[in-house]
């Protein structure tokens, strides 16, 4: 069995700078593997151990996602080897372009039975990469997956997921794409052995020359900093809680917020 776990190497938007034209500068936002992707990697590693499957890590992004800092971070978290679509030409890849490229990479890896993804990425939280990959590949897909194990008949996998507060158990035919719930597992913290072993694992880097970007299908009409209305930012000292409460309630009443 072959399992692919897709992850994103990206910066936290909280630390990025944005120009008046909406251009985002990630210099002060160092990239990491998103915490939900780490959950998916943990789920993937455990399933690979349980089934004797090969685990291949897969990612896409600017050239630096194929460099040592990024590949070691990924390889120390479970995958046996890595395929990195790493090219500055991918830097502005949209959700649909990313999904199409990752799906094509899965085809090229070949004989993939299962693709696991995290719940959402740290920087965009679109929550659609897995489902769109499944759509491109024509495979079964489920999201909010809490656990995955080999099915008892030997056919497919058994999955549990949270649905409207309750839980469901399902059998899912392979091949399939499963998006792991954000709390599906507590990821291991890579130890020294994991980090040292990471340096020896194979990394294959693919670029735009091998996997060109498909058309984006969108024309950008405008971009800017957010239009979010500025908040008042009024502070009310709270040493006298009753007085503070009265002040707030009066302000909310005057604004018609508290009817």
């Amino acid at each position, binding site marked *: 069995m072959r399992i692919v776990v897709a992850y994103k190497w990206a910066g936290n938007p909280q630390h990025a700078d944005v120009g008046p034209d909406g251009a985002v500068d990630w210099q002060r936002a160092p990239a990491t593997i998103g915490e939900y992707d780490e959950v998916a990697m943990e789920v993937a590693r455990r399933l690979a151990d349980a089934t004797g499957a090969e685990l291949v890590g897969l990612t896409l992004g600017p050239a630096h996602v194929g460099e040592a800092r990024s590949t070691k971070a990924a390889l120390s978290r479970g995958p046996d080897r890595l395929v990195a679509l790493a090219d500055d030409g991918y830097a502005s890849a*949209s*959700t649909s372009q990313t999904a199409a490229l990752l799906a094509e990479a899965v085809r090229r890896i070949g004989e993939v039975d299962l693709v696991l993804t995290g719940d959402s990425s740290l920087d965009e939280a679109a929550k659609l990469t897995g489902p769109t990959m499944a759509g491109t590949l024509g495979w079964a*897909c489920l999201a909010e997956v809490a656990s995955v194990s080999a099915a008892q008949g030997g056919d497919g996998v058994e999955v549990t997921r949270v649905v409207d507060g309750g839980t469901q158990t399902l*059998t899912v035919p392979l091949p399939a794409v499963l998006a792991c719930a954000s709390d599906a597992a507590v990821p291991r913290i890579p130890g020294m052995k994991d980090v040292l072993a990471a340096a020896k694992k194979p990394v294959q880097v693919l670029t735009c020359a091998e996997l060109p970007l498909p058309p984006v299908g969108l024309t950008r009409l405008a971009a800017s900093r957010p239009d979010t209305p500025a908040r008042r930012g009024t502070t009310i000292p709270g040493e006298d809680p009753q007085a503070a409460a009265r002040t707030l309630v009066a302000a909310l*009443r005057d604004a018609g917020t508290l009817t």
Partner: protein
Amino acid sequence: MDAWILATRPAPDLVAAAATFADTVRVMLVATADELAAAGADLSGGAGQVVVVERAPQEPAEAYAIAVADDLAGRLADRPAVVIAGPGPTDRVLLGAVAGRLGCPIVTSVLTVDRAPGEDRPAIARRLYNGIAQATEMPQGTVCLVLADAGTGSGSGTTATPAGQAPVERLAAAPLPLRVTASTPGAPAVDLRLAERVVGVGRGLARAEDLPMMTDLATALGAALGCSRPLAEGLDWFPKSSYIGASGTHVRGGLYVAVGISGQLQHMVGTRGVDTIVAINNDPEAPIVAESDYTILGDLYAIVPALTAAVRQARAGGAP
């Protein structure tokens, strides 16, 4: 401009939102026979046409995602459309199947959808990267949208088709062999998006035992109770449907009161649609101060009960 909504239950909110920018609104519904019977005449949610894919109860709706995508691809071959789904996990699997099958762009974090000037295409304003930037984009053909908030457009579309009048087409579709083998029901998910007032609890609350104090405040305000991410994941004090944030629920009512929440971008991006934000926090440097209209700076354990009492008095008609 045509709109197609993918859903597993009648979606009048999404239909109404689509009607603000599209000329025709159609719905593709994947549901069980019981669900269809229960919906009755309200199946279309106001749309002009409904295509129904009936699933057996032990088949998850996701089993039909590829078949739905193939069918829709045929219908849209010469007529690009705006394909819309809600933010739930099953909705996203249906939408992703269509987006992947068509190779069309996807837009999330949508702010508004209008007609692009002089074009029979939408102009979609959307947030980027948790809201640190925003952009307006126009698709070249079909586009897939996640609409988490209804009522996005300022255009005037067709008025809703009255209940029971939309033609219902039954689509015979072949599912993938996914099967539900066991099911334990749980408490129905809280939908904070519908709440006019919400109180959010964060890590400033030391113990789960202190939650009743927060429930009292919420009750006094007539508010729903939500939380920041750590309290729903890891701490498990709240179900995931209660967590407000980038990959959680986006609240958008008249009032949001954030108690013991520091105001990280990840959380605040789930509150952008709210009219008035109030915070209670003991840290004057916390990011939430700049992100709120009013912050009471102090110990939440003293302030929350005082605020509860003051709100009760004010709502009972007394002077504050």
